[in-house]
Structures are given as structure tokens and as C-alpha cells.
């Protein structure tokens, strides 16, 4: 019998199709087992972290990546890694000494180091080779191709754009050491202000202990004081811009999944609340794009106080009547994107997004690493294969010229500008821009000008370790876009497929909310969250002042906690101020809510007003449930922020409220949140992640490093 016959022999066996229910069950069980395994691994890590030998104690793992205890043969790599790092550093230091022109900041430095490492790779390779055992292999060889980068510079906007995408792939043949060394060196030097580089040996998940720099804890968040309690007599008006971003929630989730309480500054209450879909009543027409639901009920956080929840639901566009899109994907392919949670996830996310677009929509791709280049000229979505193959050919390497990339992306969007379409640049990155326009103010100005010409910017954040949340927020806010943080495939699906309408099609822009409290009913109030979005009272009626946008079918929720007159207020009455009798002519009103918005193509705003009376305490069961959910999330977020204003509220209270108000939860997002509460409870027993600090206890290896390059 020949091989073909034997092949055929099996092909003709008629395998009965498997039962789809059984399949679903098997997959569910497997995924459950997967999760269980993950947390078991995680627990093991904790045990290991507290090891008694000096070596074990010195090592801090990037959380869940550790699976085995160390054995002697693994230690070899660590020592090897130290040696390599030292060599890389010395090489870098020499280079700096000779390059006086490159001296404007640590960012530049990291690029130069990356380049020099590529050139000096052979030296390192020799040292490395000796340290590397036969079984040790780099998991994914992706090289920062210097040659490919220059090529990109020379041929921007060239027609044969595929060549560029392929070039890095060819360079991948370069020794893996190159990646290895350049990965380590820039990171140690970027933290240029510190005299030491914290160094950690991580288990790289690829089956070998790879020496690598500690990358956790370099995520940047801006610090904003929590909104405090305001006296109605002194400050009766509160104004803020809406916020539809969800990045904070994903970041918090990732942190908790790793068993660590998130940095307090990473928690933005409004973004956590607005992560969820709410079943508020829908508005009827596109002309009046919102409906505001104001619900007043007792505060679950403080006895005697009340919560006023303002829920806004925007008009949803039918899929068929969705406007055309002219999208430019601006993709960060710098070396740091070489991580399963970054570039690969990004590729998957964008290919998912393609499925939601219409065949006539146009997509182009711009990449930036050391330099920016067009990888795909504007292409109709009907030629999906072309787009997909361009996307798949991307590979990571080099430093990050984000500013340059943004310019190029806008240029491309401008070329293809269609005034009836949604023109949008979608920036996907893991963090900061370190080459080109690096000054956030300058970048912001650029984006604002482009926004006024009709091109909007959305930002998708990927990965941890280098994430510059503050910059991303700022850019998206000024570019009339959404900043979302994508950490898993499910999150990508949520942002790009289920909420494509909200992500892509703005229904209204510059949406501002102003609430005036009635001093004859309320003594003091506090806006929960929205710290980064607070506006001055006079900004409300000023149409020149930019504010948040709202996409099709999106919901925005804001929560106020207020103290009714008669309940002991937090702020004492002034001893010296004249007692003025407040005579309110509308005494049964608690507050007056005003919403201002502009339709996407207009420049003058419209106003919606809603008086809030005690009637708002009674509404239908769905709205009550949705409101309770929003309040549970807000409570949880405030606990994560330190619980300054939440009285005796505990995680258990939140858990109870969340469980009681879960509703239908068709996509499981709310169940996931409930899991997060459990995780937070566990994590709360452990030390929190300090601001800019590292996870666990990284060992500090003194490095011969100058203090500052400025």
C-alpha cells in the first residue's frame, strides 16, 4: 500500500460531525480550567516570591509569568544576563561619550543605544554565545532593523508600499542577540534620572529564563486630586465635560488580574462607570440626540446623603445608515511592541474591525518606528485580503517616532478627505513617543488644528510597562476621539466590534454638563470622578471650549453625592458670614441639569435642560437597576482610589450591590466586574503598586550610569 492510498484510506473514513452543544460545553470547561490554572500559577508565584534563599528574594517576577522554581542551570542565564547588560551598558556609555550631538534628553538616548547595539551586535554576540546553553532559544526573533528603517525614510508614500512591510521580515534573520541586547539597554538608560536601573530576571513564557529589564511600573498616569465636597452656598454650580473613554477600566482589570491593586492614579471613576452598557431609555430621533435620565436615591456610601445619577443615552445609528469611513490606522511598530499583548493583539483587533466596516469604506496603514512610513495606501475594505496581508506583515523593531507618524497619518487622511464621511486616524500604541514631535503641547496643538479641519483621532492603548496614559488621554480628548485600552481579545471585540458605532461615529461633540444645586434643598455636593474633565462655570456657554464627544448608541453616566438640607453637612457653617435667608422661588427643585452639545458638523451648541425634583426619586425598575449598577461601579472605583469619601463601604457591600443589579448581562462584562471585586479583595491584602514604582521587590543592580543627560 502506498502513502497516497493510506492518506486516502483515512480521508474516506466518514467522521460523524461532533455535537455542537458538547463542543460548547467542552470549550467552556476548558476555559474555566484555564482560568483556574492561571490563578494557581499566580499563587505559586507569590509563594516563590517570599522564598528564603537570598537569590529567591532578590528576584521579582513580572507577576504571572513565573512557572517553575529556579534550578542551577537557569541561574546561569541570569548571571549571563547581568554580564550582557553590563556589556550593553558599557557599549552604550562609550557611544554617548563620542556623540556630542545627541544630547537632548534620555529619549534620544534610547534610540541611539538601540542603533549602536545593532552595530555592535557581533561583539555582544560573542560574549552572549558563551553564556547561552544549547537548549536556550529566543522565543520570537524580531529584530529592530536599522536598514529597513532607512528604507522607510527614503520612500515615504511610495506606491510599492508592501516592500517596506516585508523589509523588517527579511532582517529577522539577524542574530537574535540583537533584539535581546537592544531590548535591555535602552530601558535601563531611559530611566536616566535614576542612578540605578532596576533589573529583573523574568520567565519569558517562551520556555526559557530570559534576562530582561523590569518593565512594569513605568506606566505613566497623571495625578489628579479627587473632587471634593463643595458647599452649595459657596459654589452652587458644577460643570464638566463628558468622558466616554474606558481605558482606565481595562487597565485596572489587567492589574487586578495580576493580583495587584492598581495605582490610585490609574483609577478614573467615570471611565470605570462608563465602561458598561446601560439600558437607559433611548432618544427618538437624531435631531435630539440624547435623553437624560436623572435619578435621585439614598446614598449607599453615607447614611443620610443622597445620590443623583445623570444618565445620558445617545441616539444609535442603524448599521445600514452608518456614514462612510475614511480610516487611517497609525500603528506603532517600535521595538517595545514586540510582545504577544501588543503587536499581535493589535493585528487581531484591526482585522476584527475590518469586519464591521462597509465594503466602500477606505482604510490605510501608516507605521512608525524609528521613522514613519506608509504601508498601505488608501484601500477599499472590499479588497480585504490586501489590507489583511499588509497588516500581517508588520513586525516590531526600533524606537518610536510617534510625532512623525501622526503627521504622516493626518496627511494621508487629508488626501482622502471626504466631507460626508467619518475621517479618523486610529492610533495604536503601547506608550510614549520618543522621537520627532515629542513635546506633548506641540503634539496637542497639531491635533487640535486637524480636529477643526474634520479629522478626528482615536487612541487604542496596548500592553503595560511603558503605557503613557496621561499623554494618550490628552491626545484623544483633544482629537475628539476615544481612548481605549486593549488588553485581551475580548476587549478588542468590545471596543471595535460591539461598540464600533460609538467608537467611530460621533453623534454629538463638545458635550458639557452643568448642574446647579438649589441651596434651599441641598447643603453640599460632590461630583464623583470626572477629575480630568472639570470645566470652569463660564466655559459651559462658551462654544470655543472643547469638551468630550459622544458616539452612536453610547451611554454616559455621572454621579453626584449630595447632602440634603437638614442632614449634618461635612463642612461647618461659616461663623462670620452673614446669615442670609435663602428664598428660592422653585423650592421643590433639588437641582437643575443643563446639557450643551453640538451636532458633529455644527459650530454652535444646543441646550437641553432638566429640572430635578423629588419626583426623580421614583422611576421604573430597569432604570433603578441600571443606576444601582453604576453606583456599585462608582463605589468600587472610589475604594480602589482609597475610599476617602465612601464612609464604611467595603468590597463586600459593592459585591452585594453588583450581584443584585447585574441584569441580563448578555456579554458577561458585568460578571467579569464581579470577578474583579473578588480579585481586589485578595489583592487588597497585599502591598499596592506605588506610583511609578515597580511590582513586588525588584532588585536594584548598581549600574555605572551618569545621572542625567540634559
Amino acid at each position, binding site marked *: *500500500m*502506498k*502513502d497516497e492510498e*493510506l*492518506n486516502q*484510506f*483515512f480521508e*474516506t*473514513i*466518514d*467522521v*460523524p460531525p*461532533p*455535537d455542537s452543544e*458538547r*463542543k460548547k*460545553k*467542552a*470549550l467552556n*470547561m*476548558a*476555559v474555566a*480550567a*484555564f*482560568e483556574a*490554572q*492561571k490563578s494557581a*500559577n499566580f499563587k505559586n508565584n507569590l509563594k516563590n516570591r517570599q522564598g528564603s534563599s537570598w537569590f529567591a528574594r532578590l528576584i521579582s517576577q513580572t507577576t*504571572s*509569568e513565573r*512557572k517553575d522554581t529556579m534550578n542551577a542551570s537557569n541561574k546561569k542565564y541570569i548571571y549571563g544576563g547581568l554580564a550582557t547588560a553590563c556589556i550593553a551598558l558599557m557599549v552604550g556609555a562609550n557611544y554617548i561619550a563620542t556623540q556630542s550631538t545627541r544630547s537632548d534628553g534620555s529619549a534620544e538616548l534610547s534610540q541611539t543605544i538601540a542603533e549602536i547595539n545593532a552595530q555592535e551586535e557581533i561583539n555582544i554576540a560573542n560574549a552572549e554565545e558563551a553564556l547561552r546553553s544549547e537548549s536556550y*532559544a529566543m*522565543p*520570537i526573533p524580531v529584530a529592530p532593523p536599522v536598514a529597513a528603517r532607512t528604507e522607510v525614510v527614503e520612500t515615504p508614500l511610495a506606491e510599492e508600499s508592501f516592500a517596506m512591510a516585508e523589509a523588517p521580515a527579511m532582517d529577522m534573520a539577524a542574530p537574535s542577540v540583537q533584539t535581546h541586547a537592544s531590548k535591555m539597554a535602552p530601558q535601563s538608560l531611559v530611566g536616566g534620572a535614576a542612578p540605578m536601573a532596576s533589573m529583573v530576571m523574568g520567565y519569558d*513564557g*517562551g*520556555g526559557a529564563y530570559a534576562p530582561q529589564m523590569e518593565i512594569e511600573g513605568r506606566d505613566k498616569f497623571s495625578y489628579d486630586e479627587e473632587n471634593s465636597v463643595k458647599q452649595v452656598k459657596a459654589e452652587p454650580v458644577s460643570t464638566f465635560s463628558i468622558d466616554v473613554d474606558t481605558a482606565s477600566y481595562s487597565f485596572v482589570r489587567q492589574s487586578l*488580574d495580576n493580583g495587584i491593586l492598581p495605582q490610585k492614579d490609574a483609577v478614573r471613576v467615570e471611565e470605570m462607570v462608563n465602561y458598561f452598557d446601560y439600558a437607559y431609555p433611548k432618544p427618538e430621533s437624531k435631531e435630539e440626540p440624547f435623553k437624560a435620565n436623572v435619578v435621585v436615591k439614598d446614598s449607599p456610601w453615607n447614611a443620610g446623603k443622597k445620590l443623583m445619577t445623570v444618565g445620558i443615552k445617545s441616539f444609535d445609528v442603524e448599521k445600514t445608515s452608518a456614514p462612510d469611513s475614511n480610516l487611517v490606522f497609525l500603528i506603532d511598530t517600535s521595538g517595545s511592541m514586540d510582545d*504577544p*499583548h501588543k503587536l*499581535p*493583539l493589535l*493585528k*487581531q483587533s484591526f482585522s476584527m474591525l475590518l469586519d464591521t466596516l462597509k465594503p466602500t469604506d477606505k482604510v490605510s496603514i501608516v507605521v512608525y518606528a524609528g521613522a514613519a512610513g506608509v504601508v498601505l495606501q488608501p484601500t477599499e475594505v472590499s479588497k480585504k485580503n490586501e489590507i489583511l496581508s499588509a497588516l*500581517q506583515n508588520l513586525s516590531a523593531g526600533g524606537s518610536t517616532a510617534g510625532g512623525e507618524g501622526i503627521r504622516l497619518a493626518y496627511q494621508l487622511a487629508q488626501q482622502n478627505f471626504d466631507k460626508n464621511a467619518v475621517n479618523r486616524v486610529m492610533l495604536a500604541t503601547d506608550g510614549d513617543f520618543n522621537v520627532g514631535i515629542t513635546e506633548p503641547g506641540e503634539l496637542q496643538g497639531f491635533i487640535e488644528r486637524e480636529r477643526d479641519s474634520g479629522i478626528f483621532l482615536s487612541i487604542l492603548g496596548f500592553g503595560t510597562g511603558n503605557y503613557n496614559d496621561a499623554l494618550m488621554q490628552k491626545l484623544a480628548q483633544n482629537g475628539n476621539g476615544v481612548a481605549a485600552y486593549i488588553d*485581551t*481579545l*475580548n476587549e478588542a*471585540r468590545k471596543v471595535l466590534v460591539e461598540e464600533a458605532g460609538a467608537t467611530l461615529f460621533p453623534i454629538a461633540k463638545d458635550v458639557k454638563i452643568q448642574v446647579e444645586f438649589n441651596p434651599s434643598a441641598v447643603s453640599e455636593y460632590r461630583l464623583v470622578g470626572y477629575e480630568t474633565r472639570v470645566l470652569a462655570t463660564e466655559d459651559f456657554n462658551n462654544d470655543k471650549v472643547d469638551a468630550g464627544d459622544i458616539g452612536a448608541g453610547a451611554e454616559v453616566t455621572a454621579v453626584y453625592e449630595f447632602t440634603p438640607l437638614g442632614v449634618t453637612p461635612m463642612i461647618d457653617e461659616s461663623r462670620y458670614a452673614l446669615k442670609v435667608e435663602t428664598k428660592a422661588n422653585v423650592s421643590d427643585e433639588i437641582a437643575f441639569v443643563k446639557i450643551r452639545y453640538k451636532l458633529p458638523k455644527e459650530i454652535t451648541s444646543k441646550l437641553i435642560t432638566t429640572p430635578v425634583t423629588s419626583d426623580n426619586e421614583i422611576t421604573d425598575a430597569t432604570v433603578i437597576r441600571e443606576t444601582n449598577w453604576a453606583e456599585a461601579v462608582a463605589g468600587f472605583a472610589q475604594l480602589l482610589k482609597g475610599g476617602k469619601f465612601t464612609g464604611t463601604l467595603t468590597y463586600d457591600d459593592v459585591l452585594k450591590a453588583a450581584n443584585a443589579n447585574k441584569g441580563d448581562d448578555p456579554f458577561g462584562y458585568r460578571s467579569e466586574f464581579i470577578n474583579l471585586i473578588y480579585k481586589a479583595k485578595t489583592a487588597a491584602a497585599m502591598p499596592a503598586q506605588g506610583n511609578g514604582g515597580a511590582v513586588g521587590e525588584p532588585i536594584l543592580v548598581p549600574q555605572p550610569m551618569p545621572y542625567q543627560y540634559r
Partner: protein
Amino acid sequence: MERDEKILIQLSVSGDAGAFRALLDLHYMSVYKMAFHLCGHRENAEDITQIACIKISQNILNFQMNSKFTTWIYTIVLNTYRDWVENRANTGKGKVALDDAAPRLSNNDNPENNAAANEQLRQLSMLLEEERETVILVFAHGLSHKEAASALGCAESTVSWRVHEVRKKLSGIKEGIKEGSGS
């Protein structure tokens, strides 16, 4: 497609449950198919597939990116099948002969349509257990002799030898059938 798979594997190894589900979904059919080839019975094959899926989920976090994913999966299915046979022998009906794990023809949904398939399953059942495992890996699932050897836990030359043996045997059976039907 292959790149997609690689991405999914990377994400799964790093702990992404969504990606892991997608990955299993992608391989469910081939796992089931292999289980069916091995045990020749739909419901048993589904049982084995389910156990194998759980085993995969318990081990994927330790998966080494430099090894081939399909080979890794087939190794798990094979071991699951072996355990399953042993388990049945121990718990169920006391001592059961090897060929009890072989096709149970009467249970097929539509015996008439499956006549040809049953014939081939019957032929398979006439092989030695290890020979059967070997040819299923090599011919039904396209593993190279080397990959099959690593899945089976034997030498590459052993795989080649078994394939050779099976060729002879199956040819013999075939001729036997021809002769039988001819006379």
C-alpha cells in the same frame, strides 16, 4: 491563517482567555477527529475530546513557543486516549481486551451510509494498538515520522518500521477482501 494561529498561541500562553477559547475552537475539530479515529465511536470521541481540551488548558501556560503546536496537541490527545482506555479497563467491566477500545460499529448513527467507513475502521481495528496510533498520526493528521515519534514517545525509526508493517498488513487485508469477494 498560520500567523493568526501563532498570535493566538502567544496570547494564550500569556494568559488571554479569549484567545485561548478561539484557539481551542480552531483545533476542536482536528482533536475530535483524531479521537474518533482512535476510538471509532462518536460519543466516546467527544468524551476524550473534552478531557483533552481540559488537559490542554491546564498545560498551555507552559507551552514552549519553539515546539510545534499541533504535535503538542496530538500528544495530549493520544495520552488522553491511552488513559481513557486504561481507565475503562480498570473501572468498567473488569478486564477488557485491547480491541474493546476499537470501533463499536453498531453504535454509529447511520450504519448504512457509514458502511465504507466502518469497513475501514474495522481494518484499523485489526492492527496492533501502537501501529494504529502511528498511522493515525502520520496519515490522518499529517505528522512527519519525527513528529509522530515525539508524540508517541518512541524512536523515529520505530515509526518508520510501524508504517512499513501497516502498509504490508493493510495490503494483505485488502487483497484478502478482493479474493474473498472474487471467489
